[in-house]
């Protein structure tokens, strides 16, 4: 019985090592997208999204992707850290990391673990301590929430910034493109006695 549990846990640990944790995924990303994306690095055995119950709704998604071999998982992680990998949209890259056992919702018990609990009442001398601890924990929770909000704000800001840069660049491109397209460039060139060739050929400016 014990050894069965141990084997189960060992198998689970092995699975953890083979799994990649992806985040910063767009909500549009589906399982098939992830699968096809990572297929170039190895065989994808399974893709599981981690449901998000308690956090604000516009958080990016996360997924656990189990690869066939540990080495493939490592390759995925290293490639994704080197190059920004885009999935279903640009330019926010997907982040990959090695998975950790706590990320799996349905993990098996670790064999040989003992948990002990103990009630403390108000009369107990340690109760004060414990209540202080509780307050501390709550405080940490609020701090984390604030930090999270801050992070989301930063991300939005960056996205807006990039959006504007992109728009500006695109405008410039459009302008140039339209000039070439509607003949204004050619007319101007004739005025100034310059030769402007079409896009297809090599441009020669003397």
């Amino acid at each position, binding site marked *: 019985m014990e050894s069965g549990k141990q084997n189960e846990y060992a198998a689970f640990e092995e699975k953890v090592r083979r799994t990649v944790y992806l985040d910063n995924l*767009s909500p549009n990303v589906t399982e098939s997208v992830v699968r096809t994306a990572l297929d170039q690095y190895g065989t994808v055995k399974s893709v599981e999204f981690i449901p998000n119950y308690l956090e604000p709704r516009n958080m990016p998604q996360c997924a656990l992707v189990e690869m066939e071999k540990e080495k493939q998982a490592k390759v995925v992680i290293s490639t994704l850290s080197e190059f920004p990998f885009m999935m279903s949209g640009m330019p926010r890259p997907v982040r990959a990391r090695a998975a950790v056992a706590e990320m799996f919702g*349905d993990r098996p018990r670790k064999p040989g673990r003992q*948990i002990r609990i103990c009630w403390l009442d108000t009369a107990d001398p340690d109760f004060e*301590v414990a209540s202080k601890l509780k307050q501390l924990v709550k405080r940490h929770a609020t701090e984390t929430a604030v930090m999270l909000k801050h992070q989301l704000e930063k991300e939005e800001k960056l*996205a807006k910034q990039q959006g504007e840069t992109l728009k500006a660049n695109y405008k410039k491109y459009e302008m140039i493109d339209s000039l070439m397209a509607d003949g204004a460039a050619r007319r101007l060139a004739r005025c100034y006695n310059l030769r402007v060739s079409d896009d297809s050929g090599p441009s020669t400016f003397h």
Partner: protein
Amino acid sequence: MSQIREKNREQKNLGFKWGTSIGAGAKISDIMFYESFIFKSEEYFVYDCVYFDLGQPEASIGKLVKLFEGPDHVKKVKVVWFMRPSEIRNYLGDYEPRWNEIFLASGQGRGVSNINLVESIVGKCNVVCTSNDHRNPQAYSEADLRRADYFFCCHFDVGELAISDTFPDMVDRVKVEYFFNKKTEQKLLGRINLKSNVKRQTQRPNLSSKIKVVTKSNGVTVKDDNSGSRVSSLVKESKVEPVSMTKQVHLPSENIPVRPKTSNSNSSTQHSGSSQCEDRDEIDKAEVKFPKDSLTSPDEVQPYKKRKLFLDERTNDKVHNLDGQLGHDRGINIDNQLVQVSRVPDDDRRNWFEQQPWEQRLERAQESGRLVSLENLDPSYTSEEVEDLVWHAFNEKVEAKMIEQTTFSCPCYGTSPPYGFNAQSKALIIFKSKEAANSAIFQLIKRCLMLADGRRGLLVLLMVFFTCRPLIARRESLRKGAKVGFVGHLTIDKLQFQRQTEDMKKAKSTSHASQPNNIEFDMGMEWRLLQLKSDMWWKALHEVLPMPS
């Protein structure tokens, strides 16, 4: 002898007192060797690692190998040094030392050891040996490693000016075993013969074996009586006078400092005394208590980030009070008042009934007010363990789901030593009825449910006091709302109106790693930068600073 006593009386204001003497010097009979001493209210034993202040910007770390006093009444210690990486940086070669790694000095030559005055000792230092040498008991756990101030796995030979990880038999005429970790209780059972090598410790093995035998038969660890006589001066430690419990073996308190080498670090006092074999109810006290300046507080403080909590000292009375509160005896193993959470007997039954998918259950639970979130759990718990826990604590059968650790719900990813175990996790609990949920929340608010967890499941209790956390419950409501747009994916609006060919559509949606030749790459790198920055600030938020000594 009387001279020494006089000296002690004079120097009482310095707080120095020798411990047991182990005999006079062989060559020079005027010198008296000792096993321990008390200095500035701390007790130092031979083979402890200590900090020295020798006028250098960083304190030097050394191991006390001899404690003695000569006829001139000058108290000296012989120290074998540990080198910091900065001191031997010219000889490190390719070796990249970790941030808290040091090197044992060895070999023949200057710098291995010298004799210092006791007054230059600043404090104790917790050093763990992580070497794989067969003589080194791997008696430390990850938490010990994290708690340790420094660790070493290599030694630096001053003659050859090189580091190596194979240890010689002797370091400055001291057997190398003394530099390795101290052995734990269990391992002592098997390795008692090793100790008989040392003539100084011939007393110890007998006592230790007695203790161990008793431990085995009672199943309860034995009171370490070291807490008895000396502790009065150690105000800051949490050692308590031995409480006579029925199950305990009361060791006779004598001059022999009974200190079976159960602690896996050289300085026992670091662990609030709990690293020695102590009573279990003391252990759970030790978990809650934070000695003011103890260096073990890092692991207790770990769950609580950058906070320092100062608590009152404990007295015997408190121990008795807690005893009286045994309560919640459900016929499960009660280790004094720690209730062991074991598997709920009929847990298979829940699989009999067909259940609706989890999401639906969650929603229904929330509608009827039965959804509660339990916070401050150890993240390595599984959902089943949480269910058992709740059953033991509240006598309620519930459904639990641990919320998986993701970058935002618990950004303590990875198990890098300084940050790994300070995480806390939440679990969602669905109670059977609203009243049950209410009463559980109420109870948790009014009283405190402390969790302790023995990560290794060994009998040795020095593992137990890692984390002690009060559970917090809160009625939970799921965040609703449609999936808002994803921040960070840009589109060019105009293109949407053009008819996109199949190829264009495919190109946009194919996942790819972008190459450095387009604007997409630059923007992607900006996002990367932001991601790294956010990693850093999460790390900083969750960082646990060690307590200043």
